[in-house]
């Protein structure tokens, strides 16, 4: 492998091949051991069927040389502009990813293949739709064989979905600690019988069966042959079909969080909301950013302003209800917007083996513009983040910034201060401007009509 080439640090588990970049382009090497499967994927018509349904990321076959000599071919998959992870998805996004995985497995079985893994990391989101990105996840179907990825599917999808539905929607964050899915015994302990017969079978009995037969594995090591478990094709398909039916029925728990109904209870008058929309639109028209991160997007009202004009937008918010609303609003609509759950005071860090398998938030992209509307008071007052640290952090991520300053006299800030002592003497517009001017070049500032707020446009 040459110096200009980099093996993707999250692509090492599967011996079928790996992802690497060469001269800034993303490629996938297919190893010799996977040649028959790759040939069958194409010749059986499965690859074409998956593309027709928009379920699999397309790739181009290339004449590039393999970086390692165990390779037979190099393909160039279509690049996903922004990689996201399951612990950042809304409930419905995780549910859609689970359904996609099962549907792909079922379609693969029609073509004599199966999904040999069911990792949630194999799914990404593109213009409001989930898409499977691991072209090398398909293996031959062996007659009467069980689904080897069943346990992984339960850990990566069923456990978080059931915990989110029956315990708390924030349970999705557990998947950040358990990179190969939530252990089923842990999910079982938290569920404590909730989730009905579906959870009983796939989590409770499943966890008990794994525990009961854990010792059997050591007897196999001692040389005792194991009788293969058989599962008829009919029962195999029934299992997949029943999981599809159950998952389709799971619905977002009706709980409300602090800011979930923000749009309805915003402090803006109609005039103020129009003014804010007009200022944001003007700033966006001035810059025409190709990509934008909306930090603290709430239900995505202002992210949509950017996305609808073609700006690829990632809408981050810490509220699972708001992220869910944004996902539902844009799901399947072919709009370039990606709503993600992200606490700005504790953004996703790099995790996994060697701390490199999954990227941190800022490693994934350098957007053309950042937008931070009505968030500064949450950062500075609720979380005690000084202006200086905030301005520095933001300036390291992009060359443009749209930011709204919310003064202390604003009703939302008053609400935050009502339950705590006001120790924020330096939370003033003058101090905000002076501090941000050290890291950013002011381009424009406009007052939001009908409020005391100001929206700034900064550059470098």
């Amino acid at each position, binding site marked *: 492998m040459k110096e200009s080439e980099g093996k993707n640090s999250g692509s090492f588990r599967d011996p079928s091949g790996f992802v690497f970049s060469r001269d800034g382009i993303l490629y996938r090497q297919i190893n010799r*051991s996977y040649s028959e*499967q790759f040939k069958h994927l194409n010749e059986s018509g499965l690859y074409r069927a998956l593309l027709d349904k928009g379920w699999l990321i397309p790739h181009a076959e290339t004449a590039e040389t393999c970086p390692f000599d165990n390779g037979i071919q190099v393909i160039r998959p279509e690049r996903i502009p922004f990689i996201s992870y399951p612990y950042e998805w809304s409930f419905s996004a995780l549910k859609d990813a689970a359904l996609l995985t099962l549907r792909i497995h079922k379609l693969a079985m029609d073509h004599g293949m199966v999904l040999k893994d069911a990792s949630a990391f194999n799914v990404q989101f593109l213009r409001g739709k989930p898409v499977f990105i691991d072209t090398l996840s398909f293996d031959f179907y062996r007659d009467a064989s*069980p689904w080897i990825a069943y346990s992984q599917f339960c850990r990566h999808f069923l456990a978080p979905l059931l915990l989110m539905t029956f315990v708390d929607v924030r349970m999705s964050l557990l998947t950040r600690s358990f990179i190969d899915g939530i252990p089923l015994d842990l999910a079982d302990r938290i569920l404590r019988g909730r989730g009905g017969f579906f959870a009983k079978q796939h989590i409770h009995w*499943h966890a008990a069966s*794994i525990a009961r037969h854990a010792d059997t594995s050591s007897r196999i090591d001692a040389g005792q042959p194991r009788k293969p*478990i058989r599962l008829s094709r009919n029962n195999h398909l*029934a299992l997949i079909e029943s999981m599809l039916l159950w998952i389709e029925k799971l619905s977002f728990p009706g709980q409300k969080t602090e800011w979930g109904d923000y749009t309805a209870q915003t402090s803006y008058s109609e005039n103020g909301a129009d003014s804010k929309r007009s200022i944001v639109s003007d700033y966006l028209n001035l810059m025409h950013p190709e990509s934008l991160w909306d930090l603290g997007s709430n239900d995505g009202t202002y992210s949509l302003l950017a996305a609808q004009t073609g700006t690829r937008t990632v809408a981050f918010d810490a509220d699972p209800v708001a992220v869910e609303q944004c996902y539902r609003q844009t799901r399947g609509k072919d709009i370039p917007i990606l709503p993600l759950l992200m606490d700005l005071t504790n953004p996703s860090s790099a995790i996994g083996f060697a701390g490199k398998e999954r990227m941190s938030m800022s490693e994934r992209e350098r957007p053309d513009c950042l937008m931070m509307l009505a968030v500064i008071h949450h950062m500075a007052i609720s979380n005690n983040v000084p202006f200086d640290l905030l301005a520095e952090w933001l300036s390291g991520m992009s060359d443009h910034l749209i930011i709204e300053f919310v003064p202390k006299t604003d009703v939302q800030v008053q609400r935050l201060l009502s339950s705590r002592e006001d120790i924020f003497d330096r939370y003033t517009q003058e101090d905000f401007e002076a501090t941000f001017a050290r890291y950013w070049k002011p381009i424009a500032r406009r007052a939001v009509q009908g409020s005391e707020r100001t929206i700034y446009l900064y550059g470098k």
Partner: protein
Amino acid sequence: MRFILYIDPALGSMIIQAVVAGFAAVGIFFISFRKRIAAWFKRKFKAKNDADITSTDKKDEGI
């Protein structure tokens, strides 16, 4: 033909899968049976309706 098994399928997981799939097969059988019965009644009802409409039409035409 070589198979690539790089994740641990876990024996306990395989065993419970076979059990759970059995329940699923029974469930799916009943769902499809129910659908077939519903479709049969729907067809029957539609045929009866069509026959009634035809006889009414015939009466209207004075046949």
